[in-house]
């Protein structure tokens, strides 16, 4: 195996504390520098989740959220360099997360955050105005059909959940929200 490849495998395992094969390349065993990389990798993924799921974080507090998110990143690490798509599996994971058993709504709140995030980055399209619809007769409508805007997301949930989510939308949560 070429050396670069062998090193990458050893280093990736060291990041996850799964092996000490990186030791062959370290001048100092247990070099604290290794922790800098471990911390940055985890923080990068956790920061991405914190941007996507601010309502969950507001409900449980930042410290609890970051600890839970760090656990999620270990089971479901990012796979792509653009992390705008990272975290789709987080709502379902949160619903099954044992420490969140007393707050079963967290996974559902995460689901709404995810839909908001998808809508936020969805394609742009002009809206069809009422006056434009008014010019179409029935056969026009049949022929042309109507399409949903790319940013529309549909979900069904208990009404109290929507109120809970809305009650925790503070402008300070995210500069883009």
């Amino acid at each position, binding site marked *: 195996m070429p050396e670069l490849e062998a090193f990458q495998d050893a280093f990736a395992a060291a990041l996850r504390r799964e092996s000490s094969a990186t030791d062959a390349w370290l001048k100092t065993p247990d070099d604290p520098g290794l922790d800098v990389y471990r911390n940055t990798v985890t923080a990068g993924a956790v920061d991405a989740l914190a941007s996507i799921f601010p309502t969950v974080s507001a409900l449980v507090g930042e410290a609890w959220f970051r600890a839970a998110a760090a656990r999620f990143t270990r089971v479901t*690490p990012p796979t792509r360099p653009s992390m705008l798509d990272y975290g789709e599996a987080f709502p379902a994971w949160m619903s099954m997360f044992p420490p969140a058993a007393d707050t079963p709504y967290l996974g559902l709140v995460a689901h709404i955050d995810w839909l908001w995030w998808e809508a936020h980055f969805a394609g742009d399209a002009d809206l069809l105005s009422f006056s434009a619809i008014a010019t179409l007769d029935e056969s026009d409508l049949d022929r042309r059909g109507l399409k949903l805007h790319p940013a529309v997301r549909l979900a069904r949930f208990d009404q109290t959940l929507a109120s809970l989510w809305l009650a925790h939308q503070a402008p300070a949560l995210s*500069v*883009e929200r």
Partner: protein
Amino acid sequence: MTPTAGLSLKPQHYAEALATPAVGQWFEVHPENYMCEGGPRLAWLAAIRERHPLSLHGVGLSLAASEDPDRVHLVALKKLADRFEPFVISEHLAWSQRGGIYNPDLLPFPRTLDALQRIVANVSQAQDVLQRRILIENPSLYLDLQGHEMSEVDLLSELAKRSGCGLLIDVNNVFVSANNLGFEAEAYIDAIPAAAIGEIHLAGHRPDIAVGENLLIDTHGEAVSEDVWTLFQRLVTRIGPRATLIERDDNIPAFDELLTERHRAGAMLEAASARADRELAHA
């Protein structure tokens, strides 16, 4: 025209960035944050791009790796470059992807001949897809690895020669790596081939919480340190002015605070330019 100083563009500052009248003001973004279909983020970038030059500074191509650069990612980068026409595209001398997992960090590697060959091939592939020269940035290092067959300066110089890429010199990374690994930052700054350097980065750092001053962390969350300003002065005195970024990604201050740092860098570039002109006149 003298190269000018620019700023990292952060969502907190979109409105101020759009309105700023600063002459020569350019902005830099991580393209990974704009790889989406649409929405307000892309709309802001488009509006700001209409008034200011833009630089795309990638973090995800994983060029110092045994695998080819991620094709989907490269194509997404090309799409952004086609739309926003950046005056420069840059990436890092580091890796992040391995075996289907993306590690959101700029990871180190032993600087072997094998590694150099892979990186030359990967940078060439990226440049072929993007149909332009890119700049490669020196990393900040936290681990003293063994097995290096060449210095970082030699690797970067050879990479530039073989692939045709340019270099982005992050002065703070030089300072941080020199501190952490125990080499002389001035010697590094003096040895980088001037002709290859297309851009300079300035950023802040802080000591590691556990270890202290012996391990500095390149946080992009502090003001540029005086040590780094001194090294920057040394670099531009030797090579002349280059487009210079005040890089801030964390602990984002008020826009005006960044403008003050940008102004300081800009004045130093002007002075370096005037000096270069005088030397030319006397030659």
